[in-house]
């Protein structure tokens, strides 16, 4: 059984311009010990997707669908129940660590309290555990540094502290929403390395959310590419990087500036702008930015699914795939 199984997930926001569907029928699962990357531009709905699962949607948002965590539906849980799951079984890390840390409390206080509350450890044990976690995320002199306040840490160190806090309760699932986007490349590289070590050392499942395919190349098992609230392609890392099916995935790959190749004069970009959910084209949602668009794209593209879990939503046939007869909308409607 999958650790997390999401079916027919829809997220809708009530805005002055009308209802906006940020996530339009998502199905995916995360297995134990697996790292899943969800990739897409801003407006793809990737953050809203996990916010909905975690019950953290903004006030004007509403979600439907199922999100079974160890067989229990997170979407049907009461806030109190969900809180326990969030603290103990699923941890979440956000893009800006400063907003999630209390600037008035020392790291020691913040971490020890979490451990005492969720695991019921006595204070000194909780503290020792916190130090151990800081050591696990490679913070030098954890005994000393745990006494400091968030502002005394650099950006990269703060993100490490966030990860350490996430790991405190030894969660089964870690969700990281753009954990290194706001950081320097050098620090990004360090965080990437840290995550890759954690993957090997623990049995924890990880969901990584990012707009940069390059950032997850090394550290994910499977990748879901999202566009305008829908899956456009999904598959294993090798599938996505070496055999991309969807023009959008290819565009994302080509737009990464590379140092390991001879440079062209022009960088490859995906033309146009990230999707505006209020002004989507009919048919294929990516059609107005797609360099390979043809006439048939004005109709709703089929969803190709293969036996080994590859998915592509495009008029072009996917090798070894069959058209899924009832697409997710059916699942989302119930």
């Amino acid at each position: 059984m999958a650790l997390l199984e999401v079916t027919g997930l829809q997220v809708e926001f009530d805005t002055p311009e009308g209802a906006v569907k940020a996530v339009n029928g998502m199905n995916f699962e995360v297995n134990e010990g697996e790292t899943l990357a969800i990739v897409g531009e801003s407006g793809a709905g990737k953050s809203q997707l996990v916010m909905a699962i975690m019950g953290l949607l903004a006030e004007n948002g509403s979600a439907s669908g199922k999100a079974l965590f160890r067989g229990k539906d997170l979407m049907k849980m009461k806030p109190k129940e969900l809180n326990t799951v969030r603290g103990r079984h699923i941890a979440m890390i956000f893009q800006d660590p400063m907003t999630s840390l209390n600037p008035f409390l020392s790291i020691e206080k913040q971490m020890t309290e979490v451990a005492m509350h969720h695991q019921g450890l006595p204070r000194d044990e909780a503290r020792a555990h916190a130090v151990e976690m800081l050591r696990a995320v490679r913070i030098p002199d954890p005994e000393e540094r745990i006494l400091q306040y968030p502002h005394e840490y650099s950006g990269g160190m703060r993100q490490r502290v966030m990860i350490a806090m996430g790991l405190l309760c030894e969660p089964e699932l870690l969700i990281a929403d753009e954990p290194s986007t706001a950081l320097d490349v050098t620090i990004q590289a360090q965080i990437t390395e840290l995550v890759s070590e954690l993957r090997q050392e623990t049995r924890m499942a990880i969901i990584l959310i990012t707009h940069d395919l390059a950032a997850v190349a090394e550290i994910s098992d499977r990748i879901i590419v999202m566009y305008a609230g829908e899956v456009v392609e999904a598959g294993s890392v090798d599938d996505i990087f070496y055999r991309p099916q969807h023009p959008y995935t290819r565009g994302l790959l080509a737009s990464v500036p590379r140092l390991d190749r001879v440079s062209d004069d022009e960088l490859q970009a995906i033309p146009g702008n990230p999707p505006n959910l209020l002004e989507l084209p009919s048919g294929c949602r990516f059609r107005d930015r797609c360099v390979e668009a043809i006439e048939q794209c004005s109709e709703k593209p089929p969803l190709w699914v293969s036996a080994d879990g590859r998915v592509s939503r495009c008029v072009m046939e996917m090798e070894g795939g069959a058209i899924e007869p009832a697409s997710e909308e059916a699942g989302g409607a119930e």
Partner: protein
Amino acid sequence: MNSGVELKDQGLEIKDPFAAALAAEDIRGRSLWVDAWHRLLKNRAAVVSGFIMALMVMMVIFGPMLLPWEGDFTDWDNTSTPPSAQTGHWFGTDAVGRDIMVRTLEGGRISLLVGLVATLVSLVIGVSYGAVAGYYGGMTDRVMMRIVDIIYALPFMFFVILLMVVFGRHIVLIFVAIGAVNWLDMARIVRGQTLSLKNTEFVEAARACGVDHQSIIRRHIIPNLLGVVMVYVTLTIPQVILVESFLSFLGLGVQEPMSSWGALVNDGAQDMESSPWTLIFPAMFLTITLYCFNYIGDGMRDALDPKDRT
């Protein structure tokens, strides 16, 4: 005048697929104000309050004209009569036979006027003072804010009594007294906002474009702090009305035959046991007004500062 800027199109091809849209008509923008207005309209409490306040304003302006009584007319046949349609005194009369309804409405004129004018005074002084202090910072800021502190330290009541003693009791003095104290809060709030706005990237960008200080304050600082100011204004109006009521209650407010809600409540409170209606009606009007302004203020705060924009 020749501007010296080349106006020729530098002729770069646009790679946008919607090239046809080039010839299309201008799209209308939707400003943050319009957004906030729409959010406010969705707030039922604020909309109902706004409606009631509009009604209230109409009533206090036109009501006294339509009623058969004058505010200072004494109906000797009906002194201290309870509300009744028969006598034509729907809200009853007071001990000297004056119609409570017309007095309440006329008192409303004064109360609302005091609220509006005093707030307006504090708005104009406070915003310009605070924006200047916050924007220029340094010594200017320090001196200006110390002045505010000094005025703040003066006991308000002492200040009012002093004014009354020197100039005699006059309605204008109430405006002056309340306005003189209220702008201090406004100046502080505006200064704080300006300090944080001054460091925003768009102000730096304007500076980098060569925009002069005055234009930066006018175009970039003030429009961005208006939201906070507007919320504060709607919360200040009821506060000012209350202060005026308090002054009137102490006998320092408006003078007979003029009246205000505060003065009426004061009168009514003295006859509370024998003729409670003289207290109930003005108090009701006062309370409704205070509630409405608070709801409108809350609604505006929510509308202007949405926690999540999607």
